[in-house]
């Protein structure tokens, strides 16, 4: 191959780079929907809430960010912690722990993180404890939601997975977004 011309792959990708910013939003929306139909994707983001392990399909996660400069919103639901600014956009932040009926006495002292999900109603940040990283799960690692788990909102839980590090509760991103369609 001559060094004078970029390789075909680079050529093919060139227009994509020009519009990457335009398309990233579109892609994020498409991915969020794709995650909804695929019951058990293989790559998941693992994190903790109230010292328990949870995971969300990686395709449903827009980004992970540090939770800082939170502005409280009066008249919103108790589970709505407030709003934050994400590159200039207003993003609501909700306490996933409270929605799932969990409490952690130590939560207040840790630097918290947020996992940003999004659908066509815009982005939504979920406050979590610690982000552990990506876990890869095979279908046989995963079991459906045991009866009685997630008493308040069972529809938010897709299932559970057994891993070397213990049991992880798998959450359903689109169900969470639907549940939090309105935060007042």
């Amino acid at each position, binding site marked *: 191959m001559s060094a004078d011309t*970029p390789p075909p792959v680079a050529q093919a990708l060139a227009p994509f*780079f020009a519009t990457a910013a335009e398309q990233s939003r579109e892609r994020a929306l498409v991915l969020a929907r794709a995650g909804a139909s695929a019951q058990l994707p293989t790559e998941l983001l693992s994190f903790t809430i109230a010292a328990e392990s949870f995971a969300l399909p990686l395709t449903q996660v827009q980004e992970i960010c540090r939770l800082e400069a939170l502005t409280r919103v*009066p008249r919103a639901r108790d589970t709505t912690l407030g*709003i934050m600014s994400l590159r200039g956009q*207003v*993003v609501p932040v909700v306490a996933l722990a409270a929605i799932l009926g969990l409490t952690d006495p130590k939560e207040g002292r840790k630097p918290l993180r947020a996992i940003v999900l999004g*659908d066509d109603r815009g982005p939504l940040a979920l406050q979590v404890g610690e982000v552990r990283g990506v876990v890869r799960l095979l279908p046989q690692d995963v079991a459906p939601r045991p009866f009685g788990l997630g008493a308040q909102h069972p529809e938010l839980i897709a299932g559970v997975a057994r891993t070397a590090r213990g049991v992880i509760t798998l959450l359903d991103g689109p169900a969470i977004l639907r549940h939090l*369609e309105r*935060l007042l």
Partner: protein
Amino acid sequence: MATGAVRPERINAMFRQGHTLKGLFGMAGIKGAQRVAHGTEDLLESMRMGRAAITGDTLALLIDCVDHCAQRVEEGLSADGGAVLEAQVEPLLARLQGQARAGHTGPAGGIQVAQPTAPPRPAPVVASELQVARRPPAVAPQRELPPELRRMLTEYEEYRFEESKRAGRHLMAAQVALSLMDCDTALPALEAQLGALGEIIARLPSAQLGADGTIVFDILLAADAAASAVAARLGRNDVALRPLGGDAEPLTEGPPGVSALPAPTETAPPSEAHPATLGPAAPAAAADPEPPAAVSKGPQTVRVDIGRLDHLMHLVGELGSTRSVLGRLALRARQDGQAQGLAAELEREGARLERRISMLQAQVLQARMVPLAPLFDRLVRAGTKVALELGIEAQFSTVGGNTELDKRIVEELADPLLHLMRNAIDHGLELPQDRAAQHKPTVGTVRLWAQAQGSHVVVGVADDGGGIDDEAVAQEAVARGLITAERAKEMSVDERLRLILLPGFSTRDEVSEYSGRGVGLDVVKTHLERLGGAVEISTQRGKGSTFTLMAPVTLAIMPALIVVAGDTPYAIPLAHVVETVGVEPAMVGSAHGQPTLQLRGTTLALTPLAELLQTKSATGQGRICSGSAPLPYAVIVGQASRQTALTVTDVVGQQDIVIKPLGPRLGHIRGLAGAAQMDDRALILVLDMMALANELRAHAPQALEADG
């Protein structure tokens, strides 16, 4: 590889690929490899700019870096390989940094480039412009670049231009008009031909579309042979080849309808290029395509990073809050019996400062305004391309391209308008034979128009296609489970049409490449709502559809009073604030069990803002009573007889804010108009005073209004 001349194009191509690689790794989120690619790109940048020597060491390092990146692709995705490769990152980066330092101290031996490494040029543009300005007008410039073209060159391209000039090569510009249909194959073909004859320094597409759907490109070439010889060897009569500087006449005829390079034609039209036909004053002008007058005038516009203008706007906002501090000082001075003179002076100067700040603000906002025309051009190009590929005959008309909008808003409008343009052609216009069958002209028309309406601008995309069938839309929405069949029956035509703005809606079963991307018009709607705008649809069966977008002309900047209620700051739009007063215990009274404020003979209801906001507006359970001590400040809001006093913990001052909507999840909270970004990156909530005042009226005893 042996010692010898290095072809600069090759290094440049490598640089570009390094850049692409960095971007790809960045997108894939492989940080380590991204850093290696970034370091590689930096090294290649130094090499192509002649700052780093090409030695055996640099080549070995480059190969190692490329190997590392290649292994990433093959093995890096497995868990174990990733860790091994990650360990290589730091040593590679250390070597890259070492090489960069070596590059600055000079060549480190090994394979030498035949051409000696050029020293970095100090401020190349300024230097060459000074030369032009100082040159006596009688002397013709040699191989000088017209400033219009020079402005379009990247630093590297300019460097290559100057290098080629220094090496005594012939510089020329090849101009060609290529059809939009095949320019992505015709241009590389031409470049391959030209590349064999010399070094291609830059390819500059013109912003204007040429006649009959062509696009004009200028290709800057440096060759060892003169332009005439290159033209003869190229042997293409559709390419106009002109040497830069000296003789401004093209050697071969350009294609019809294509204007020549900007500078020579502006100063000397082709017919006047022969000195014999010119008047007495003309020879100098003909000999010098860049008369000194034109040079000293220079470009009348500058390109500014929009981020800087954002910052400027922010600073103006801060000036405004400093101004309000002055106002408070004046107020305090007035209360001091001995400082009346000082107070008057402070007030006078404060008013003068305020006038200037608002002028400054207006100017900054003006500087951010750009016309819509370039976006319209882009839309027409996109529309042309879609129509060509779908076999639809379309013509375009644009009206109001000179309408000016804030740059950020133009950016936000680009996506929605591109989407509507694609839709107009893909879903709107019919195929030529179908149009003929309906006795419509076979060529469909898409009209783009813009019109300023006060503080808003209205942008429309209209097609004369088949229109939208609202019945079909409703059926589709029912089929997709978006609405119930009963609901569909009740809906008005307009309501049915608006169903196409719902997420996941498409009236066509087959997904076409252009419109059906799984993302529909709902994105257009969300974009506009984020701007504080709206979308309207009108359609007539068989006649066409019009989509109208309403957007604010500027970002919604408004002056606001920043107050603290409880421990949270809020912004109250200044338009709703009558005044701010310090509350003395003597001013506070009570009427009908509710605290009141006596102010200059009027009685106003007194409500702590914090308590008002805690109250759930929907429940409406009883009145708001404050048992605690009155707060130090009261903000008087509302109009005329409907004024009311809200007590706050603190008044921070006045500031210009850019209001952002809270989005669909929170947008329904009564009493909140939106949020604004403060200096410290935190958001502040903006209160909707109209809604809050209405609540207060609903809660307050009727007698109070009689009292007031």
